[in-house]
């Protein structure tokens, strides 16, 4: 086992490609993703206002929309047509139309309507804009109402209560930071890692067979040699995974709620599961480049099937099966359960069992390798 381990380290040292996959490629990929999402909070999304009213109330509304940090009013436009061209060209994401006689209608209590046209092709951006506009305008509307109640009643607390008899307090459980950085990065980076884990192990074993070194590698028994050969990858990617968790919950301001130990155990099982799958692909044909293509088809689209951006319970049957066939789905559930909820370790057992179910693939790999060598 030690022999194979040392031999593999030698191989890695001599191969720029393998060395890259273990060192700077994960580093650069992680940093790129962290860099993309680092702001976490989206600010100044460009929108316009078409102000047909041009009153002090409409101007006040524009100022308040602009004061919302998510939104930025780039222009006051005179026609909806002009705005719609800008939306189609993606110069702006939305336009808010304040109708004619808006102020007059408010004073006459005719309840006029402000219309927001929001580009929903960019779904997430559309939702952000809707929520920002809704908050701003309902506050503004309540203020106008409050002032008119105050005028009628002359008493502050009563006026306030007539304006909004029930308050809502929104409590985002668990990801209490309401931050997209935590939410997306903590799923994207493990997704990149699973691609690296699968491809690197195929390259490692593929290279051995391509250079006809398999007799050297497996001379001290298949099982021990296979463990020794894969260990450098297992350990390196485990280190990357741990480093990533420590960065997220040590360096960034989030708090890890649960058990590190169980998360890292799951991480190890996840790595072994991916290696098991990738090696099984390889021993099916012993064809190096073909296996790489197969493993790419398996690992590359994983992000869509994780149930992070799109909930699992709304997926089609096929997608649900595929979701369960990807070890990362089970690993991420454990990571989120530990990081955000601090779920008791005993409740992680079924998920850990799911990961363990991939491990018999190693037996298949050993069996096929025995036949081959």
């Amino acid at each position, binding site marked *: 086992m030690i022999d194979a381990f040392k031999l593999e380290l030698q191989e890695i040292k001599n191969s720029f490609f393998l060395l890259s996959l273990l060192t700077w490629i994960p580093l650069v990929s992680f940093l790129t993703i962290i860099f993309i999402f680092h702001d976490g909070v989206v600010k100044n999304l460009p929108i316009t206002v078409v102000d047909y009213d041009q009153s002090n109330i409409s101007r006040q509304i524009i100022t308040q929309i602009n004061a919302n940090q998510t939104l930025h009013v780039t222009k006051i436009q005179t026609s909806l047509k002009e705005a719609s061209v800008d939306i189609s060209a993606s110069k702006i994401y939305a336009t808010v139309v304040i109708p004619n006689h808006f102020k007059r209608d408010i004073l006459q209590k005719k309840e*006029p309507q402000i219309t927001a046209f929001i580009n929903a092709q960019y779904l997430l951006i559309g939702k952000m804009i809707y929520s920002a506009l809704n908050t701003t305008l309902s506050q503004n509307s309540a203020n106008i109402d409050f002032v008119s109640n105050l005028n009628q009643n002359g008493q502050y607390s009563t006026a306030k209560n007539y304006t*909004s008899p029930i308050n*809502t307090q929104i409590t985002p459980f668990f990801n209490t930071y*309401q931050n997209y950085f935590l*939410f997306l990065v903590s799923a994207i980076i493990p997704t990149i890692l699973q691609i690296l884990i699968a491809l690197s192990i195929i390259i490692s074993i593929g290279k051995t067979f391509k250079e006809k070194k398999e007799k050297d590698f497996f001379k001290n028994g298949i099982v021990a040699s296979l463990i020794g050969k894969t260990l450098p990858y297992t350990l390196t990617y485990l280190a990357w995974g741990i480093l990533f968790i420590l960065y997220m919950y040590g360096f960034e301001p989030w708090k890890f709620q649960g058990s590190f130990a169980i998360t890292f155990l799951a991480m190890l099982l996840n790595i072994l599961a991916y290696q098991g799958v990738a090696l099984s692909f390889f021993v099916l044909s012993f064809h190096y480049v073909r296996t790489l293509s197969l493993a790419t088809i398996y690992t590359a689209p994983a992000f869509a099937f994780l149930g992070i951006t799109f909930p699992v319970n709304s997926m089609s049957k096929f997608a649900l099966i595929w979701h369960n066939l990807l070890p990362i789905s089970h690993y991420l559930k454990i990571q989120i359960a530990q990081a955000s909820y601090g779920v008791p370790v005993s409740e992680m057992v079924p998920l850990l069992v799911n990961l363990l179910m991939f491990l018999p693939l190693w037996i298949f790999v050993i069996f096929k390798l025995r036949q081959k060598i």
Partner: protein
Amino acid sequence: MSFLEVLKFEFKSIFTNAPIIMTIIGGVILYSFFYPQPYINEVVKTLKVSVVDLDKSELSRKLIYSINSTPQIEVSRQDMSSTDAKQALIEKKISGIIIIPAHFKKDIALHVSPTIAVGADSNYFLVYGSILEGAIKSILTQSAGIKVTNLLLQNTPLKMAKKSYTPYSLKTIYLFNPDMSYTYYIVPAVFILILQQTMLIGLGILGGFYNEFKKTYNAPIWMKISSRTLIFGTLFFTHMLFYFGFSFEFYHIPHLASAYDIITLGVPFILATVFLGIFFGGLLKNQESATPAIVLTSLPLVFSAGFVWPKEAVPELITYFSLFFPCTPAMQGFLKLNQMGASFDGVLVQYGLLWLQTVLYLLLAIYVLRRNKYKHSPHQ
């Protein structure tokens, strides 16, 4: 060698290489069915919430009823305490919690505004968003209803009372994707990425293959480039028409652009990608480095293109870097033309950028093939 012989030779190299076929034909067709799978059920199903009713008045029951009648939310259970509800949330039996405080009715009667807590699991933002939207809407309607009652108690005529409950309202019109469909959001752009990545992997494996086995043959570089362009160009032009024609129809994705505009933008996209692929393949020492190198760029490219995550929030350095990949202007251009009905004037920047890339990568492709020819030449 004549051009026809070169073309034949390249054709044989490509179509006898199983990994290339798997990628540029198998992969492209498989992905077109595979990738949209998570989203094809479309709308996010009803989300189950638990209500913790600490008031137990007829008013709180009315509120629960109105929450339950919103399309997004089903009140699947009621818990005695928020601890129980939270436990159910952790066990994924529910996706959100609504807590109605004790003395809810009394507080309203006494004109003390009570506070309703709405909670959801924000680790899953789509779930979170819909729950909140539904819950808040119903609560606010309820809130407005109470306001009407209050005004009535003050002897305001009913008609006036109803009208004055809010000074103005907001109406939202969602353009281009009114059902907020995830398929429309993700699939059109990801298709472009798939076309680019499979093209690059295919040409990468091919280039690596030539370099690895030192397969140089005596033919002018322009013949090699034009024959690869002809083969890959024709194939991916067909793929593109298959995606934009058949696949869009298959998933009922709206398509607003004319075939002419799609082709006009598609030609420089395919050319730029083919030349980038020849350049990339020329740099590789062997076949196996192609796939890992390309596949690792996918996620960063998706998230920096500006459709999933706003371009305003992407650091400039990343944006500039992403502009070197044909898929970035192509995704932006095709989304505008085909999903948002922009005129071709609206995509001139992307169109120009794709032609610039075409020229740049053609020059780089010529350079790298020349270098390789020199390196592999037997005189050395």
